[in-house]
């Protein structure tokens, strides 16, 4: 029986580590969604560092056809045989179909609408799927200065859909972001259209407790799936807004031993 653990996955992982961490659950669920999209047709995925990169590389091993990985460093169609250590990893360029400049990757590939899926994270996510990765507190005298925008605002603007991967907590899942770095649904239904944003916005949030999706009409993020062993109460207690649940609330399948084994291979840096 799988138990959803909130234990941080930062310890060294080994192939024999069969304990499923919170990060594992998020990564596997992200990889599943990406695999499904890829299997249903082409899925081009704009990949950042950290969990999204692990998820995308796991999806590459689990699905056929695999998703097409695109990195903001300019690598298009990278097929790394081991998990890249950074988005500047030489392996990404060596195995890419094409390597282009940074201005080109943003203009010709992301902005032009050639990216189906963009993964994003952040320090805060609000009920309308907007993301803060800039500051906690006041911009001019911040409590915590975060790294900032990077590629996120334009991924949020132009990707066919955005998947957010974040641990769920009252601190992070807020009524309104302290700073709106990236637009989800802005001020609500119709706002993206008014802003002229062509991408689909925050279509899925993958947390350590389950999945959230925007409700048709209001665009408010509601829990649509719980991970095995997670209660509604846990979700409500970990959310800074009055969390709603889908009428047909579902369970995500438990992380299978095959998935876990392949994930451990990816994390250990094993070549494929």
């Amino acid at each position, binding site marked *: 029986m799988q138990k959803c653990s909130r234990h941080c996955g930062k310890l060294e992982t080994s192939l024999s580590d069969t304990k499923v961490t919170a990060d594992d659950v998020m990564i596997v669920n992200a990889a599943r969604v990406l695999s499904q999209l890829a299997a249903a047709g082409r899925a081009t995925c704009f990949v950042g560092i950290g969990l999204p990169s692990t998820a995308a590389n796991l999806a590459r091993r689990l699905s056929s056809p695999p998703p097409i990985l695109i990195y903001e460093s300019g*690598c298009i169609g990278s097929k790394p045989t081991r998990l890249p250590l950074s988005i*500047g990893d030489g392996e990404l360029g060596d195995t890419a179909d094409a390597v282009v400049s940074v201005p080109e990757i943003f203009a010709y590939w992301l902005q032009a609408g050639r990216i189906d899926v963009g993964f994003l994270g952040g320090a805060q996510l609000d009920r309308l799927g907007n993301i803060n990765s800039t500051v906690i507190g006041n911009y001019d005298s911040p*409590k915590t200065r975060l790294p900032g925008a990077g590629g996120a605002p334009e991924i949020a603007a132009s990707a066919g859909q955005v998947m957010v991967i974040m641990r769920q907590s009252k601190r992070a899942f807020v009524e309104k972001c302290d700073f709106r770095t*990236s637009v989800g649904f802005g001020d609500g239904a119709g706002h993206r259209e008014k802003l002229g944003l062509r991408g689909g916005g925050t279509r899925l949030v993958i947390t350590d407790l389950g999945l959230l999706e925007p409700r048709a009409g209001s665009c408010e993020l509601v829990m649509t799936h719980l991970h095995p062993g997670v209660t509604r109460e846990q979700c409500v207690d970990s959310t800074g807004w009055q969390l709603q649940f889908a009428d047909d609330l579902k369970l995500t399948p438990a992380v299978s031993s095959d998935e876990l084994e392949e994930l451990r291979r990816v994390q250990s840096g094993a070549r494929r």
Partner: protein
Amino acid sequence: MTVAMEGFTHLIPHAAGHEIIRQGRKDLHVVRMTPDVVFDQLIGAGCVRKLTFSWGGNPGVGSLHRFRDAVENDWPHKIEIEEHSHAGMAARYVAGASGLPFGILRGYLGTDLVGRHAGIKTVDCPFTGERLAAIQALNPDVSVIHAQRADRDGNVQIWGLIGVQKEAVLSAQVAIATVEEIVDTLSPVPGAVVLPSWVMGAVACVPRGAHPSFAMGYSERDNAFYQGWDAVSADRDKFREWIQTHVLSSADHAEMLASLREAGDILV
């Protein structure tokens, strides 16, 4: 003076940054899409009046503590920040390199990045009426890059992840490159960009001048250094000592690399 130093996840001009610290330059407006360890050092060493950037972290590790200490606590002094997105910064360099006063972008609209400084406005398409983001061209006084090779005429060759270096060079009043190697002839390399000598102000041979970043074909990324930087930079005293021991007490980059090697802070 506005000094851009570019290299996106590759070929980061660290040696040039250390030389700026060594020469005691102050009051600089420094520009870099990803102000990672090299700018953390410039900020902590007090060289920086203003920082223009789009993502300020230690990639794969966490915070830039000197950057955060400056923004959160004004240490060693208050710095001004001007913040963009990657796509916005890239478009600013493209406009600058193209001799245009501005560029246009689908992005920014609806974010709180708009209105923090004067560099992001809007423009209406004269054909469709759509409102788009307009970004101000970037034309640094000096742009600094690190490249793999130059020939004796000063033509500079870069390959691998080429980032925004061509645009950084072509948008600047003066461009400077440090290179791993100077060769008689630049043999063609797949994926290479060549910047002709006549757009370069100066070229200096500085082997491993990107450390702890890397130069494809010459060196590997020193991941342990990036991880180790977290502890050094988290503490003001440790940081000052590190700068004194390794940067200020070294006459040049070769001495600095030797000093790091001696301290066990460099693995290669």
